[in-house]
């Protein structure tokens, strides 16, 4: 029996839940359950008070533009300070699409409006009229989590990385951050941002386990090693896409 427990937070599940990103939460929960690691899921809606130092792993998905507009101010004003403190102490945070953009410095819309982000990731996003849609395959740039990641991207914002972040990976097929520089996603400490829906974690079980390992080691020490699982189906789904697009 494992004595491990993880507290997983989901930011604005009712507003930021588009494109099947719920699959990431299911993947984290199930991959813990199959190893007898217990989890608690804390949905964080507008107005919620959160003790971020209690949280081990947070997820922030994308939403409709209207949903994003409804939560942006609440996120900046209520959660940004606590979230930054937790991230500085190694909390794991996975953000996708709209969530990724809100973690950056700002989003410049194509009408010229500058929407501020929280500046947790040193990235900025410029809205465009070009929609970057399709299957995406990247080669991970994470030294401790090498290999390919597959997903589906659907964004018109083009994100550019500053000096304070590393890309999550190099695009092998698809657009990535901006369709220009071949990078996809951004990483700072244990904070990850990217454009990969799909859902991302079920089809990339090594990345899911990497996030869980980071969260467990922060809480329980560097000796934690996850039990391996039978990932035959997951890897078959991943391989199907890699073989199709490469």
């Amino acid at each position, binding site marked *: 029996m494992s004595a491990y427990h993880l507290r997983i937070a989901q930011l604005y*599940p009712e507003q930021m839940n*588009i494109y099947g*990103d719920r*699959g990431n939460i299911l993947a984290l929960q*199930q991959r813990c359950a199959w190893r007898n690691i217990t989890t608690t899921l804390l949905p964080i809606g507008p107005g919620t008070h959160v003790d971020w130092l209690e949280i081990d792993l947070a997820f922030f998905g994308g939403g409709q533009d209207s949903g994003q*507009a409804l939560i942006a101010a609440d996120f900046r004003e209520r959660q940004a300070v606590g979230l930054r403190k937790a991230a500085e102490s190694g909390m794991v945070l996975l953000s996708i699409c709209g969530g990724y953009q809100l973690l950056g410095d700002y989003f410049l819309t194509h009408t010229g409006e500058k929407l501020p982000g929280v500046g947790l990731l040193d990235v900025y996003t410029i809205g465009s009229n070009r929609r970057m849609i399709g299957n995406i395959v990247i080669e991970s740039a994470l030294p401790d989590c090498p290999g390919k990641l597959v997903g589906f991207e659907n964004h018109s914002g083009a994100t550019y990385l500053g000096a304070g972040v590393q890309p999550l990976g190099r695009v092998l097929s698809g657009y990535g951050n901006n369709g220009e520089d071949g990078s996809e996603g951004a990483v700072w400490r244990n904070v990850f941002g990217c454009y990969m829906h799909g859902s991302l974690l*079920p089809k990339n079980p090594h990345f899911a386990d990497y996030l869980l390992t980071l969260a467990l080691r922060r809480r329980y020490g560097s000796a934690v090693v996850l039990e391996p699982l039978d990932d035959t189906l997951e890897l078959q789904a991943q391989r199907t896409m890699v073989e199709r697009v490469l």
Partner: protein
Amino acid sequence: MSLRTRLAVGAGKTVQWTTRRLGFGGGTNLPGRIARRLAPALLQEQSRRLSDGVVLVSGTNGKTTTSRMLATILDQAGAQVLHNRAGANLITGLTATALDVGLWGQPRYTHALFEVDEAHLPAAIMETQPRVVLLLNLFRDQLDRYGEVDTIAAKWRTALATLPPRTTVVLNADDPAIASLGENLQAQVLYYGLDDRRHGNDALRHAADSIFCYRCGTPYVYDPAFYGHIGIYRCPACGYARPQPDISLRQLALDGVRGSTLRTIFSQRDGQLALEVDLPLPGLYNAMNATAASAAAYALGINLRTIRAALEQFSAAFGRIERFTLAEHPTLMALVKNPIGASETVRMLTSGAPEPLDLLIAINDRIADGTDVSWLWDADWEALREHARSVVVSGTRAADMAVRLKYAGLDPAMLRIVPELAQALDACADQTPATAALTILPTYTAMLELRALLVERGILKPFWES
């Protein structure tokens, strides 16, 4: 009709006849494209020639089934209805269908009934100047193709604002994205909705799209939600609330996969009328489709006895729900194409105390299906955990579906991945116990491929003959 339009009709008909003769299928879009190139006003001119006008039906889920129900009602009423039955619901498909209004003299048809793709509704409204517009619901569907629900609702709002008072807009009161379209229109508005609160189900909210007040952004309070963002809602901040339905489904009794019984109240200025129907189609969403069709028929002045007679003998549109016998297995095939539809189909299959399910789930990611299969994660497959006995997954994204079911808690040992549909049909017929029922859940193009295979095997008829 102008000479130009006559020439275009002739050219379109020739292409239609040729493509069908050469076996290219229903010939549903190309003739329309060619005819529109030759005479851009063709659909407009043909629509104007119909004595009883045009009816448009749109929405994410149920438009094919609902427009078929409405066609059946109009047939029953003795109307001559031109209908894009093969589901050619883009503006080119509507134009191809309108070729059949003919060239000379009095048209053979009294009404045209068009099921319309969500993205093409504004153009269809402009060109056909409809008598009735029926709008069912807006859910996330093929985000890669259509964009977000809000974007479509905004375009619809603009198009509906152009309609004159002689048009009736029939709206689903239970979908806030649809109901709010009824505000500030010149056209008459009729609302329909479900008022049987026993069907509340708050478990499906994670895939909901329009749960924030369209006026002030506050989350709606539901009492109750039926599925997704469909339900009886009000805004606690500004007081905006679901409109009172003019056509109210007051009592709904679901009877598993067999069908359901509906008692609907029609409120009029001088009193109320009641309609009782034994609907031979299963599931809450088909009851809603029947209510929508009844509301539109009522707007067209058809009496309730005719509506009842038509609905009680209705059989569903091709592929949406079909029953046939495959290698001695009584088989039910139901289309799945987006999270809400799939969740509702799973709920229909698993409600009550059904026999163990043997399933074939076929997921394609071609353009007509949506190339993004992320939606599989928004649908609730979890109920299958308690009810599935065997599952064959097939299609271009078979492995994705297998992963989804594994994370829904199904034992991976009961999942077989067979990407080729022909082999998958054989595999599930083989592994299903003799004479036990089989359930097939395909996406749109997988359904077309499966149908083609079943036609080849003599089990089904080609769709444009149905």
